[in-house]
C-alpha cells in the first residue's frame, strides 16, 4: 500500500523514515516524487489500493538534497533506481505569485490565448518579463527534475499539476487561511500564470524526451479550469481528482 508518512525530525531522519515506510510497498512499485501535489496522489493511491512508493518533498532543511546540496538525498536516490518514476515536482510558484491580488493589480497578454480578458485598470506587464520571472522562480524545481531525470532517464514521466479554480467563492470558503485584506486574483490571470508554468514545464520535458501527463480533462471545466468539486484547498486538487491522475499513470506501467 502507498504511504505518505513524513517525519518531523531532521534531514537524515527524514530520509531514513521515508526509506522505511517505502519498504512496506513492493520494491517494483512505481514511485512518485514531488512536493505537496505528490501528497494528493499518494493519498488517492492509498484510498484506491494503488501500489505506489512516494517521496513528497517539503520537509527537512534542504529537501531533497544531500547534506552538501550536490545531489539528491541518498534515500531518494536508492528508491529511484528501478521502476517507473512519476514526477510531479513543483511548488506552484504561479499560484504563489498569482493567487492573491496584488495591491497594484497586474495582468498580461498570453500569446497562446490573446483573447483571455485583461483586468480593467491593471498594470499590463510584458509577457516575456512575466515568463522570465516565473522561470527564475521555477529554477529550483527544474534542478530537482534534472536530478530525478539523471537517475531515472527514460523511466521518468512528469505530471503537470492541475489548473486553478475559476470560482472565487469556492476558494474563499476555505476558512483556515487568512488572506488578510487581499482578494483572490481574477480567474483569467491565475489561468494565464498557470499556462506559463505548464508550457515551460512541457518545454523542459520535451527537450529531454520526458513524457508529460496533462491535467485529466474529466476534472476540468470546458474553459480549462479545475472543477469546484475537485478542490482540496486554494491551490491543490483533492484525492478524487488524484484518482484521475492514477488512471493516467496506469497507462505508463
Amino acid at each position, binding site marked *: 500500500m502507498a504511504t505518505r508518512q513524513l517525519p518531523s525530525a531532521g534531514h537524515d531522519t527524514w530520509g531514513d523514515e521515508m526509506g522505511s515506510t517505502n519498504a512496506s510497498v513492493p520494491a517494483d512499485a512505481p514511485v512518485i516524487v514531488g512536493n*505537496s501535489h505528490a501528497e494528493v496522489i499518494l493519498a488517492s493511491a492509498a484510498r484506491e489500493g494503488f501500489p505506489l512508493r512516494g517521496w513528497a518533498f517539503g520537509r527537512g532543511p534542504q529537501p531533497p538534497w544531500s547534506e552538501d546540496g550536490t545531489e539528491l538525498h541518498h534515500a531518494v536516490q536508492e528508491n529511484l533506481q528501478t521502476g517507473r518514476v512519476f514526477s510531479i515536482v513543483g511548488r506552484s510558484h504561479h499560484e504563489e505569485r498569482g493567487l492573491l491580488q*496584488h*495591491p497594484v493589480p497586474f495582468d498580461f*497578454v498570453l500569446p497562446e490565448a490573446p483573447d483571455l480578458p485583461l483586468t480593467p485598470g491593471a498594470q499590463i*506587464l*510584458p509577457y516575456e518579463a512575466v515568463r522570465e520571472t516565473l522561470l527564475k522562480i521555477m529554477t529550483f524545481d527544474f534542478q530537482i527534475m534534472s536530478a530525478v531525470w539523471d537517475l531515472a532517464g527514460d523511466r521518468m514521466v512528469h505530471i503537470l499539476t492541475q489548473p486553478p479554480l475559476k470560482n472565487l467563492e469556492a476558494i474563499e470558503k476555505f476558512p483556515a487561511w487568512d488572506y488578510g485584506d487581499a482578494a483572490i486574483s481574477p480567474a483569467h490571470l491565475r489561468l494565464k500564470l498557470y499556462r506559463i508554468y505548464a508550457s515551460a514545464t512541457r518545454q523542459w520535458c520535451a527537450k529531454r524526451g520526458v513524457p508529460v501527463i496533462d491535467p485529466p480533462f474529466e476534472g476540468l471545466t470546458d474553459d480549462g479550469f479545475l472543477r469546484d468539486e475537485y478542490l482540496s484547498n486554494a491551490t491543490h486538487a483533492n484525492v478524487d481528482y488524484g484518482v484521475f491522475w492514477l488512471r493516467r499513470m496506469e497507462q505508463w506501467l
Partner: protein
Amino acid sequence: MAVNPYHGASPHRLWRRAVSIQGAETDPVHAFPFTVSTTDAVVTAGSCFAQHISRRLAASGYKFLITEAAHPFLEPDTAAAFNYGRFTARYGNIYTARQLLQLFHRAYGTFTPVEDAWRTDTGAWIDPFRPQIQPGGFPTEAEYRADREQHFAAVRTAFETADVFIFTLGLTECWEHAVDGAAFPICPGTSAGGVFDPEVHRFANHSVSDVIEDMEAFFGALRAMNPQVRVILTVSPVPLVATARDAHVLVATTYSKSVLRVAAETLVSRHEKTGYFPSYEIITGPQSRGGYFEDDLRDVRAEGVDRVMSLFFQHVCETSGESQPAEQRATASDDFFERAKSLNDALCDELLLDDGSSAD
C-alpha cells in the same frame, strides 16, 4: 589706465584664471537660475547620456520621478532588462528635439504616425519610436497596443507633474517619414527593426532654427499643461556613432553638437525657468584633456559622470548629493510576495493534514 569691459572682470570670465590655471579643476558652472530641491519631482529624458543623470539622482536622495515603474511581480534584473527605471517613463532614448516634441503630441493623441509598428521575422511587434524598449519585441499586437496606451498615460503624468524636466539634447541627424515627418530614434532597417525604404525614409540634419522651433513648440505645449515646470537643458558629450552625411564623423559630430549648443543657449536666453547645465563642456573641454573618454574616445568614463554630477549637485541642487538613498517607506506591496509565498507554503503543508480518507 583706460577702462574697458574686461577691466576688473570676474575670474570666471578669463581663460587664464578660469581654465589654464584651474586645469582639471575647472568649474564652468556660473549662476544657475534655480535650485532643485530634494522634494522636487525630477523628470529626465534625452539621449543615452541622460541615463547617467537619472541613476545618480535616484541614488542621491533626489526625487527622480518614475511614472512607469516596474511592477513588484518582476524580478529586479528582469525589470532592468525591460528598461524600467532608466528614465521617468519607458520612452527609451530621445535623441532629437523633434522626437521629444512628437512624443508629447503622440502621448496626447494629437499626432499618430503613419508608420505605427514594425514586425520582426518571428512576428513580434516593434515600436518604431521605442525600438529597443522590449527585448525581442512585443509578442502580440494586443500587448503592443496595451503597453503603448499605458506608456502614453505615464508620459502625460510625467509632463503634468514634473517640477523639473531635464532634457539632454543628443543629435541633429535623424531619419524621418516622408509623409508625416515622424522622427525615428534609429534609422529603420538597422538591427533594431524596421525595413529601410528610400522612398519613404528621408534623412534630416536639423539646423539651429529647427531645434529652436521644435523645443519652443515643446515648451509651449509643456507649460500649457504644467506652467511652473522648470527646465534644464544639457548637450550630450557623446559623439555620433555614425553620420549619414558624406562627411567625416568627427566633423559631423562637431556640427551637431554646435547646433545643439547654440540652440540651448538661445532657448535659455529666451525662456524663464530654463537653465543650461554644461555637461558638454565639462567632458569635452580642453581642461579634461580627453581624460573623461574611454579608449574608444566616445563613451564617457565613470570619472567623467562623477565630475558632471558633482558640479550638478554643487551648483544646481539643494544638497551635495553624496549618496543618500531615497527615504524608504514601506508600502503595502513591499512584502506582498513574501506573504504570498508563506501562504503558498502553508497551503502546501496543509496537505499533510488530509489523510485522504474522505472526499468531502
